[in-house]
């Protein structure tokens, strides 16, 4: 199929940037969206133009590196997939596709479609861990029983890939689904209880510092999340945050 692409081009963080139109031809419906972008870039390189910069790595939906806003949605129109898993059969011959970077004040553009998501890392530094040293004589893994239900729920929260689609989709550019998922994973496990109070307070404080917006419960994040992280994680974080503030 033949497509028109409207792509955000911005040479670096200080550039103003603009949308530029490109044509691509003979795109197979079996291609992934990023393979279509590869075709465009090969075409640009051979013409002596600068290829479009975009983040990508594992190309199997787990590393969380790819990050495009396609036709008004994070990771495009399909559900439960990242951009690298989005296939061209979702589009029709002759379509015009708008491709933009994830936009948020806390995610400044580095170049074209590449954004800086280090704000997520800093939130994790603030408390996204359990303080345990590698000693080689930690207690036996089966010494503390964990109910299957709690383990499964913690796992569901832990599947977050940190791609930032929640922030990109949210009308407020809020990071609460991301932070809620991490807080929830530890809140659901006995190992996470000891530091629970400080963890949620510190992570929320860092989140606020980074300039993310506030959650207004539109639910867009949950719909666009490639891993189906539930809004329940935000509710749980709210409870954890309240109880942490009541306790100290």
């Amino acid at each position, binding site marked *: 199929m033949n497509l028109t692409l*409207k792509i*955000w081009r911005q040479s670096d963080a200080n550039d103003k940037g603009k*949308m530029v139109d490109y044509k691509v031809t003979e795109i197979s419906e079996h291609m992934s969206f990023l393979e279509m972008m590869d075709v465009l870039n090969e075409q640009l390189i051979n013409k002596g133009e600068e290829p479009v910069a975009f983040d990508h790595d594992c190309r199997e939906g787990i590393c969380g590196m790819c990050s495009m*806003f396609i*036709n*008004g*949605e994070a990771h495009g*129109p399909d559900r439960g997939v990242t951009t690298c898993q989005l296939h061209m059969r979702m589009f029709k011959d002759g379509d015009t596709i*708008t491709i*933009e970077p994830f*936009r*948020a*004040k*806390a995610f400044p553009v580095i170049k074209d479609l590449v954004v800086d998501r280090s704000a997520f890392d800093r939130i994790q530094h603030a408390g996204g861990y359990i303080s345990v040293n590698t000693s080689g004589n930690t207690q036996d893994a089966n010494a503390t029983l964990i109910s299957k239900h709690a383990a499964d729920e913690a796992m569901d929260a832990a599947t977050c890939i940190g791609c930032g689609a929640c922030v990109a*989709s949210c*009308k*407020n*550019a*809020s990071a*609460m689904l991301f932070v809620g998922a991490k807080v929830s994973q530890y809140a659901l496990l006995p190992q996470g209880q000891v530091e629970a109070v400080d963890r949620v307070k510190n992570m*929320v*404080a860092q*989140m*606020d510092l980074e*300039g*993310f*917006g*506030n*959650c*207004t*419960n*539109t*639910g*867009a994040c949950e*719909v*666009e999340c490639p891993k189906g992280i*539930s*809004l*329940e994680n*935000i*509710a*749980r*974080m*709210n*409870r954890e*945050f*309240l109880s942490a*503030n*009541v306790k100290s």
Partner: protein
Amino acid sequence: MSGFFKSSIGRKYAMALSAFFLMFFLLQHFAINILSVFSPDAFNEASHFMGTFWAVQYVLQPILIFGVIYHFVMGFILEARNRSARVKKYAKNNGAANSSWMSRNMIYSGLCILAFLVLHFIDFWFPEINTKYIQGDMSGLLGNGEGFRYYEELAHKFESPLRVGAYVIAFVFLSLHLMHGFSSAFQSAGASSMRKEKLQLFGKAYAIIIPLGFIFIALFHHFNHH
């Protein structure tokens, strides 16, 4: 608790708490107003009680006013902050794909409700305050002394089709606001998903029945006394 209400989540709780209070007040307001349809006397009795009982006037009323102002001011502050969290807007943003219109436009439904409240205060609250606390007439009686004035004033206000029209439109926006606001307040307060489905159903019912009821009251009086 220091700094709690300065944090993003603390403010969510504050919005939710003021919303709970306002939704409860709305229910109470509706319960009294609907009396006017069935029994003018009962309506008069209830209105007089609310208008003169000290706990309502000097405790609940200030809390209500504070709640209303807080909810609006915090709503604007949050909206401003949330807008600043995305400086550069998307060229194409398909919000309808992942969220309801109501959830994305709370600020606009809220502004409509604010405009309505101004009208409502001019219509009822300012005259009430004037009669009771400036002129000092706490009797609640009509000028000629024959019975309570509340029902008469209500019926009189709904004579104008323009006012009734404005009320109807405002209540439609209230419904839209509540359609998202009800369950949103519970989500903000950390309600667990176990209860969420029933809650959402209840919220939808609330968001439709209460504003529809207010519309019914306005139309009822308009057509019955015109």
